[in-house]
């Protein structure tokens, strides 16, 4: 068996698991997959703000206190606070109108974090070469085949089936994109009522998808100066596309671009 591929619909999105390890036998592959899927559905049940009786929804309504919930809820909220400080409030899980009617929504960090953890689960099962793509945010490990890097396309912000660029990636690495595409809403400044950003999309690459995902959101809010902010985070690089189709990228990102 030359690996396996599976797409699971969970957490409101498609999660694509693509394992390329050569010597994967079927029972082990199925066990790996089941463990990952169990984890992802557990995360969904715990952190979904679309589920009214999820722990995070109950916490947001004050029906439970933090100490009554699993440690991972506290860990996520602490991570949110860390990111809020680091991003000067550009990332704030406590200021988000959530689908459940509360203003507590850590979804912006749960996705990257849970996929990074899912990658660790696969690694614990001995897998070394795979990608997990959760709605466009990707945890990368190893290579698709010896001597060849993964080729990761960055979606064109206005053409769904086109790519803005392609990067060559060898794991471990996270690739995350924040965007408002043509069918999405603009993010608007609540004070002015005007669109708050000229950025159409921001892609961040870095060693941990948890942070790459959060930084993508933060830089999206900050605009192009956010790439300067990003510079203090060693190992993380960014690529921004404006609505005027100008791209701005850090030198480290450009070094990853695929040379065809």
């Amino acid at each position, binding site marked *: 068996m030359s690996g396996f591929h599976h797409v699971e619909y969970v957490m409101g999105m498609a999660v694509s698991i693509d394992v390329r390890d050569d010597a994967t036998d079927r029972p082990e592959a199925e066990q790996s997959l089941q463990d990952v899927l169990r984890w992802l559905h557990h995360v969904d049940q715990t952190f979904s703000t679309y589920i009214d009786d999820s722990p995070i929804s109950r916490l947001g309504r004050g029906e439970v206190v933090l100490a009554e919930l699993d440690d991972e809820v506290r860990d996520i909220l602490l991570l949110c606070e860390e990111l809020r400080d680091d991003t000067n409030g550009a990332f704030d899980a406590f200021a988000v109108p959530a689908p459940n009617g509360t203003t507590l929504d850590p979804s912006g960090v749960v996705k990257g974090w849970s996929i990074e953890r899912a990658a660790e689960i696969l690694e614990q099962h001995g897998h070394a070469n795979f990608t997990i793509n959760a709605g466009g945010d990707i945890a990368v490990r190893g290579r698709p085949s010896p001597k060849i890097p993964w080729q990761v396309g960055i979606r064109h912000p206005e053409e769904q089936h086109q790519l803005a660029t392609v990067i060559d990636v060898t794991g471990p690495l996270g690739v995350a994109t924040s965007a408002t595409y043509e069918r999405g809403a603009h993010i608007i400044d609540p004070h002015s009522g005007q669109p708050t950003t000229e950025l159409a999309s921001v892609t961040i690459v870095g060693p941990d998808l948890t942070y790459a995902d959060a930084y993508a959101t933060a830089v999206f809010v900050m605009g192009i100066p956010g790439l300067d902010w990003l510079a203090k985070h060693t190992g993380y690089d960014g690529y921004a596309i404006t609505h005027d189709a100008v791209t701005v990228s850090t*030198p480290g990102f450009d070094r990853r671009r695929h040379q065809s």
Partner: protein
Amino acid sequence: MAQLPAPPMNLDDVHRLEELARRRAQDPKRPLPEPRVAPVAPASQSTASTDPKQAALAARLELLAQRRTGSSTGNQGSASSPSGSAAANRSKRRHPAQGARAAALGLSIVSTGGLAALFAVSNPSTGTQLAAASIVSGQTAASAAVGSQTATPAAASAAPAATPQAAAPVVGAAPTAATPTAPVAPTPDPASQQVNIAVPAPAPVETTVQGAVFQNKWGNVQVEVTFGADGSLIDVSTLQTPYRDGKSVRINDYAVPRLNSEALSAQSANVDTVSGATYTSNDYRRSLQSAIDTARAAGVTAVA
């Protein structure tokens, strides 16, 4: 990782100070609320150093509870909130980080929106092709995550006017060395700010041009742009910002190409996977296999 140029302005300090000031202004005397939640037993994943962080987290949860119940008038902090009944909604606008966030956005628009327009000018033949984005109200992952307001139908209907505004006047100014004659927008309008930047035609020597002063609710903003002999953009300085003067960023340390010159088809590219933000659930479901794993290498066996 390559060394990036110094930030054009120290957003860290600015925003921390601003946030502190806002908190004080809203609530000069009110102490931090006592944590209502019980101390959490140390978990294996946490370290002893998280104790202050946990206290801070507990305090934020307490604030959340106060907003929810409307039991606190202190954190609303303004007579402009006419009642407590909609405190949960309004509190978002009152969040201390809101000002910092808005300021960051304002700064980013001011300092970079002009860049986008200028680059559009530097390549006028393609300047407007991709400038307009259709605007549809709806929730996206990004908007939910950052806590900014999703465009309401009313706001969305106003936004399309701003988009062409960003591109058209600037492109029109390209053939001549325009002077900043466009009136300064009386209200914060990110798009109109771009209009006020003068753009020279390619000159034989370096050319430095000052943009008009743009006034927003945080103060005045003015940029200065330097073009090289070939008309390329060399440097952008902020002459005035609401916070700090004279900082600049050497933008030619970044790669700043036009996107459409390098866009390629996902169908023809031999890519393993694609990074891109998702739509809402149903939208994404429809485009599931086509958007993700396009052109994935053949021969992979599905397990389930």
